C-alpha cells in the first residue's frame, strides 16, 4: 500500500515536481560547460555549478511546492476522505523533496568527481542545498497556503530570491538578516558563520512548514478556489 500511494502522489504532484529540479541542475551544468568551452575560467564554472545547488534548485523546488499547495482539482473529495488532506499534500511535497535530494546528491557527486568544489565536505555538504531549499520551499508553501494565490506566492518567492541576490551584502552584513541569507556558500564561502546560517535556514524552513500545516488544517481555507 505504502509504495502505491507514494507512486500515486508522485503523479499528482505533477510533471513539474519531477522535472523542475533536474532542469534546474542541468541548466546550471550546461552553462558551466558552456563557460569552460568558451575559455571561461574554472572559478566561474565552479561558481555556476555551486549556484545550481544553492540558488537554482531551491528556486525550482519552491515554485513547484507552492503549486502543489494551491492546485488540487478534487479538493472537496479529498477533504471528505479519512486520510487527512494535509498528509496527502505532505506526501506530494515529500516526493518533490526526495527527487530534489537524490538529484542534488548525484549532481554534487558528479561535480566533485569532475574536480570542482561545492562547499563543505562530508555530511555538512548536504546543507549547501538542503538548507536553502527547505527554507525557500517552506516559505513558498506558507505564502501559498495563507493566500491561496499562486501569483502572490510566486511573486513573494521571486522577491526573496532576487532581493537576496541583488542586495547580498546587506544580508551578509546584518546579523538579523544573515540567518535568512540563502546564498552564503556561493557569496561568502563555508568559513565562519556558514554553519550558523545553515542552522538558521533549517530552523526557519521547519517553522514555515509547521505554520503551513496549521494553516492547511483548516478546510475552509482550502475550499474556495484561488480568486485573488
Amino acid at each position, binding site marked *: 500500500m505504502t509504495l502505491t500511494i507514494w507512486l500515486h502522489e508522485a503523479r499528482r504532484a505533477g510533471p513539474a515536481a519531477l522535472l523542475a529540479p533536474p532542469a534546474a541542475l542541468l541548466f546550471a551544468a550546461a552553462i558551466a560547460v558552456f563557460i569552460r568551452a568558451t575559455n571561461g575560467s574554472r572559478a566561474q564554472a565552479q561558481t555556476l555549478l555551486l549556484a545550481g545547488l544553492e540558488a537554482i534548485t531551491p528556486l525550482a523546488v519552491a515554485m513547484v511546492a507552492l503549486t502543489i499547495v494551491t492546485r488540487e482539482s*478534487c*479538493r*472537496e*473529495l479529498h477533504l471528505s476522505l*479519512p486520510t487527512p488532506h494535509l498528509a496527502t499534500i505532505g506526501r506530494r511535497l515529500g516526493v518533490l523533496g526526495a527527487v530534489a535530494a537524490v538529484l542534488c546528491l548525484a549532481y554534487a557527486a558528479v561535480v566533485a568527481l569532475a574536480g570542482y568544489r561545492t562547499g563543505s565536505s562530508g555530511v555538512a555538504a548536504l546543507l549547501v542545498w538542503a538548507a536553502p531549499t527547505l527554507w525557500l520551499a517552506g516559505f513558498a508553501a506558507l505564502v501559498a497556503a495563507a493566500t491561496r494565490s499562486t501569483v502572490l506566492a510566486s511573486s513573494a518567492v521571486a522577491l526573496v530570491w532576487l532581493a537576496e541576490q541583488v542586495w547580498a551584502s546587506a544580508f551578509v552584513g546584518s546579523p538579523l538578516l544573515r540567518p535568512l541569507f540563502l546564498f552564503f556558500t556561493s557569496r561568502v564561502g563555508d568559513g565562519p558563520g556558514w554553519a550558523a546560517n545553515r542552522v538558521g535556514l533549517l530552523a526557519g524552513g521547519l517553522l514555515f512548514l509547521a505554520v503551513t500545516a496549521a494553516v492547511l488544517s483548516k478546510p*475552509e481555507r482550502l475550499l474556495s478556489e484561488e480568486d485573488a
Partner: protein
Amino acid sequence: MHIEIADLRRRFGRVTALDGVDLTVAGGMFGLLGTNGAGKTTLMRILAGVLPATSGRVIAGGHDLSTRAGRVAVQRRLGYLPQDLGLYPDLTPTEFLDYVGLLKGLDDRAARRRQAAELLDLVGLSDVAGRKLKGFSGGMRRRVGIAQALLGDPALLIVDEPTVGLDPEERIRFRTLLSSLADARTVLLSTHIVEDVAQTCRQTAVLAGGRVAFTGAVTDLTARAEGVTWEIVTPGPPPTDGVVVSAIARTDGTHYRVVSPQPPAPDAVLVTPSLEEGYVALMRSAAPAPVG
C-alpha cells in the same frame, strides 16, 4: 446510518448559510430540496466532515462530527459525491478508483482492484475503464463520481446535485441506481430538481434561507398543494394570480397548472397536485411549515 442534527449554524463572514437547522434522517433514501443558495451544499459539506459547523450538533451513526475522532469515524463509512467533482484528467477510471480507494483505507490491493472493477461495471463504465478521464462526458464523469463514492461499501452516501447536466436517460439511470443503493444504506440526495426526489425518496426536507421549511414524508409535502392547485385552459396569456408551474400548448389552448390560494380564473379547475406543486406551495407560504 442514523443522523441527528440539532440547532446547526454555519456562518461565512457576515453571511449565514445555515441558521439553526434541526433534522433527523433515519435511513434509506432522503431527499434534501431547496432553492440555489438555500444552504444545501453547506449542510452536505458539514455532514461529510468537509466543513466544520459554527455551532450546533451533528451526530451520525453515534459519532459527534464536532470532534476530529468523530469526523474520521464517519468518513470511514462515508461515500461523498460533491456537487462539482473535479477528476484527474490524466488518470483512467480504474486508476482514479484505485487512488481514492487507497485514501479511503482500502489497503488490500487485490480487494481494492476487484471492488473498483465491480463498481465500474455497476455504473456501466467497464468498457472505458482503461480510457483517460479527460475525454469523458458529463454523465460519464458523474458515474465515475458515484463509483468512487461507493468504494468501501459506505453506510452513508451523500450526493450533492448528482443529476445536474445529465440527459434524461442518464438522469433516470442515475436515479434508479441511487434508489437501489438505498436498500442497504442511508442515501442523502441534495438537489433542486424536485422530480429527482419525487421518483426516489420517501422522506424529504426542504431548506429555505438556511432553515428547515419542511421535513417529513414526500406525500405530506405533496399534500401542501391540495386545494390550491388549479388547471386552466386558455388561448390567451398566462394567469397573473399564483405561480404557473407548467404550461403545455395543445390544440384547444394552453393548459396551465397554477398554484394559488384563490382560483386564478373563473373556469379554473382544482386538480390533484404533484410534489413539484407541493414544493411551490410550501415555498410560497411565508412562514416555515410545522415540522412533522
